[in-house]
């Protein structure tokens, strides 16, 4: 996949992220690339593989407190179980990645990118991907907390 194509792809993911965040968690998200995450905090990192894209992956990282806020906004009730929180956040991620790649494929007839089911990855692996393989990332702020989306090569 050429550089300009994955730049374009992340724009589609970005658009669907904003739309799905409004619908699913009732939240306006605003891109803010001046933000930085505190790597000492407890994170949740969810990844989807972009199949048929020459080994690209999308990663979403949020602090655990933000993950809990997202899950509670989807559920309209409070959560205690970390597993439930991760399930909800994964579904949120899956929904906007699925929509973004579908919209991208429709506009680019020669592309047929599919997303894999989302999986939670260890923070160490997320950090390695970000450090060594990252192509582009976007930070967002919202009333639920900060969210980071990363487009990366998969780890060889």
């Amino acid at each position, binding site marked *: 996949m050429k550089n300009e194509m994955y730049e374009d792809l992340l724009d589609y993911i970005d658009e669907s992220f904003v739309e*799905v965040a409004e*619908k*699913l968690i009732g939240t306006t998200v605003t891109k803010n690339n001046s933000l930085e995450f505190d790597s000492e905090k407890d994170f949740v990192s969810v990844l989807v593989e972009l199949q048929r894209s020459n080994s690209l992956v999308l990663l979403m990282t949020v602090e655990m407190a933000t993950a809990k806020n997202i899950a509670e906004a*989807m*559920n309209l009730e409070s959560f205690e179980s970390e597993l*439930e929180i991760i*399930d*909800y956040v*994964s*579904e949120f991620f*899956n*929904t*906007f*990645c*699925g*929509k973004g*790649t*579908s919209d991208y*494929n*429709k506009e680019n007839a020669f592309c*047929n990118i*599919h*997303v*894999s*089911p989302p999986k939670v990855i260890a923070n160490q692996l997320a950090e390695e991907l970000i450090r060594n393989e990252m192509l582009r990332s976007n930070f967002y702020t919202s009333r639920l907390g900060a969210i980071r989306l990363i487009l990366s090569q998969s780890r060889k």
Partner: protein
Amino acid sequence: MGNNKTVLIIDDSAFIFKILKKMFENNGFEVVGYAESGYKGLEMYKELKPDLVSLDITMPDLDGVETLRKIRKIDAKAKVIILSATDYADVRKELVDLGVVHFIMKPFEEAEIISAAQALTTAL
């Protein structure tokens, strides 16, 4: 509850199960089973013989297309609503070839789900 149409939900997200269950039950359907994977869904389909299946596409072990293909071998007339975060042309063609009429994108509205469910089950 005896006359209510029965529904099996196959989706790897507990979140989707929870909201679908509420939507179906609010509208007179009875959710008789939940499977978080395609293989489990197949087993439950054989056992429960539901009036309707709500089926996800992107699942870790057996995806929705393959699950539906196997359901069709058990019951060629199975009533299925596809609920998916993705809408890929090649997948949609496979689903249409497998007889799918109701394809709903996530995030969805209750009215879309119930309208499709009623359309599929009123003739039963």
